[in-house]
């Protein structure tokens, strides 16, 4: 832990002292410590550790607020358990806010009062970021994104090569020499983004989307300069770095002159650009921002693509990514798509906006120091999947895919994990 100077502490406290609006003030003052949120949280459900109760996380940040920003907390701190911002408390804060919360927001939905607990945890991360206390593992992901243009540090040459062989495959697959994966083409209607996991580990999901674009007759392009949909700055709480990443994508959109930015299947990436991006940059975007899930649903509704109805015969279930669904409002589109393709579709219990996080959210996949916890909290998702009896789990999020693949192996589920684009591409009538 870096040396705690007064200046550093003051930077953290400034987040709690300067309210931009009434939201933070409201949520800092609303928790009544009923503790009824405990069972909504994967961490508490798994470990039964009282430290992990969401209300404890709320108490941590609000007690610091009370200590430094309220009359009672300054003068009678024991009355409200007002905490000092010292080394011991900061250590605990890092562990709770980075290592014991995916910011999935399930507790928020079920809170008896309506405290936005995930928002408070995120605010806590912003404080820690201001004080230079971001875990180095997740910070390195952000650094890679800023320094190389993508969070995996893939070189342009490597990326271009991958796209080239994918394009060759696509031509063969479609038996069409005109099939292509356009790169850096100006004036195309759509600029499509990717999760860097795709070119690195799951290139077939790029082919899947390219096939869909081809069949839909879409005008689209990828960019070699900035294609990364992810934004781990959103998770670290570093507003400056999150803004830089959003700005890169915004600039590339302007550079290529596209009208629509289509965000690949990535829960947090879509949230970070679509919902938080304009606020990071303090401006309205003058182009359409949409997720690929919504785009595929639109294609189907408009008849631009057709699929073999009920062609997927194995039992299918759907995992709802928290940032896309509960925090992003994309809820029915993926169900509309699967309803057409899957012959035997089963929902998890619970699902939709009430879903459980897979355990990989909130940047957990990028923080190796919490791997053991992450796999353990994934047990709830494993149980949900097992209960459906499904053979295929579809999820419109590459981050979730990664965690679900690991859960699949760790809990011996013996299921296939697929993105929505892969399922659609397989069922496409060409």
């Amino acid at each position, binding site marked *: 832990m870096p040396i705690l100077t007064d200046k550093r502490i003051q930077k953290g406290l400034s987040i709690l002292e300067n309210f931009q609006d009434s939201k933070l003030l409201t*949520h800092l003052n*609303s928790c009544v*410590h009923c503790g*009824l949120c405990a069972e909504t949280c994967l961490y508490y459900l798994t470990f039964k550790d*009282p430290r992990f109760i969401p209300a404890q996380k709320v108490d941590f940040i609000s007690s610091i607020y009370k200590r430094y920003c309220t009359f009672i907390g300054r003068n009678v701190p024991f009355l409200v358990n007002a905490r000092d911002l010292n080394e011991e408390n900061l250590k605990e804060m890092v562990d709770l806010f980075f290592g014991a919360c995916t910011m999935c927001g399930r507790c928020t939905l079920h809170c008896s009062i309506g*405290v936005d607990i995930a928002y408070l945890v995120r605010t806590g991360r912003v404080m820690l970021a201001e004080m230079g206390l971001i875990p180095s593992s997740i910070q390195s992901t952000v650094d890679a994104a800023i320094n190389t243009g993508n969070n995996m540090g893939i070189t342009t040459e490597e990326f271009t090569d991958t796209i080239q062989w994918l394009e060759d495959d696509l031509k063969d697959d479609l038996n069409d020499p005109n099939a292509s994966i356009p790169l850096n083409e100006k004036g195309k209607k759509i600029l499509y983004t990717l999760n860097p996991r795709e070119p690195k580990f799951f290139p077939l999901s790029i082919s899947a989307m390219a096939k869909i674009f081809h069949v839909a007759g879409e005008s689209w392009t990828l960019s070699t300069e900035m294609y990364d949909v992810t934004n781990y700055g959103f998770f670290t709480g570093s507003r400056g770095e999150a803004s830089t990443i959003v700005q890169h994508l915004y600039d590339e959109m302007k550079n290529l002159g596209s009208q629509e930015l289509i965000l690949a299947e990535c829960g947090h990436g879509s949230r970070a650009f679509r919902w938080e991006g304009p606020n990071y940059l303090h401006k309205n*975007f003058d182009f359409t921002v949409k997720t690929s899930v919504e785009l595929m649903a639109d294609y189907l509704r408009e008849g631009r693509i057709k699929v073999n109805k009920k062609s997927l015969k194995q039992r299918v279930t759907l995992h709802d990514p928290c940032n896309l669904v509960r925090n*992003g409002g994309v809820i029915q589109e993926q169900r509309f798509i699967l309803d057409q393709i899957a012959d035997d579709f089963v929902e998890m219990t619970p699902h939709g906006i009430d879903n459980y996080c897979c355990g990989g959210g909130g940047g957990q996949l990028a923080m190796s120091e919490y791997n053991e916890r992450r796999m353990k909290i994934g047990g709830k998702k494993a149980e949900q999947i097992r209960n459906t009896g499904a053979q295929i789990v579809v999820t419109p999020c590459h981050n979730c895919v990664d965690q679900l693949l690991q859960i699949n192996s760790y809990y011996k589920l013996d299921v296939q994990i697929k993105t929505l684009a892969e399922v659609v591409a397989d069922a496409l009538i060409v």
Partner: protein
Amino acid sequence: MSWYLVLTFVSLAFCLAMCAYHAYRLIALGNPSDFSKPSGNVGAGIKYSYTGGMDPRKKESAFLHLPTYTAGILYHLGTFFSIVLFVCILFSLRLPSVVTMLLTAFLAVSSICGAGILIKRIVKNTLRKLSNPDDYISNLLVTSFQLITAVYLNFPTPVYYILVSALLLYLPAGKLKHVIYFFAARYHLGLFFGYRGVWPPKN
């Protein structure tokens, strides 16, 4: 005017002024500015936050904890009735004896609920770890308020005014100020989920 009535009026004025200050501060700070393009209906989201979003069948904090939830509802109803009765008492409004009897019985039940919640907080390890003195004081004050109201309806005593004054003086400082912040929290939740098209649920 007796000294305890003066104390009560002063406490009430202080409490109202402080609550007004909290409310004013929230209103003055306003809504978060949001540059993203909404995909839902904010008004409907806020309405849902105060209605369907609080449906106990949809909240694990309610349906997984039905005894506590029920006790909490009765306890809050008891507080509401006690406040109404406080106004009646302050302005010497007389209630029919049957109403007095029913309210006495209800306040006895709601006080027991309050005491039950307090005992749970003391006994349950996870809850005890979450609690601070403010949690205990707040509960004690409100439970006593309900109990003394029930007593006062049948046997008027100056102790009532002293207890109510203590409650009024303490309310704006501790967690009891959620009387204001609860509504603000529901508002912000409705705003957030409504803006993004999450609330009201689409199916």
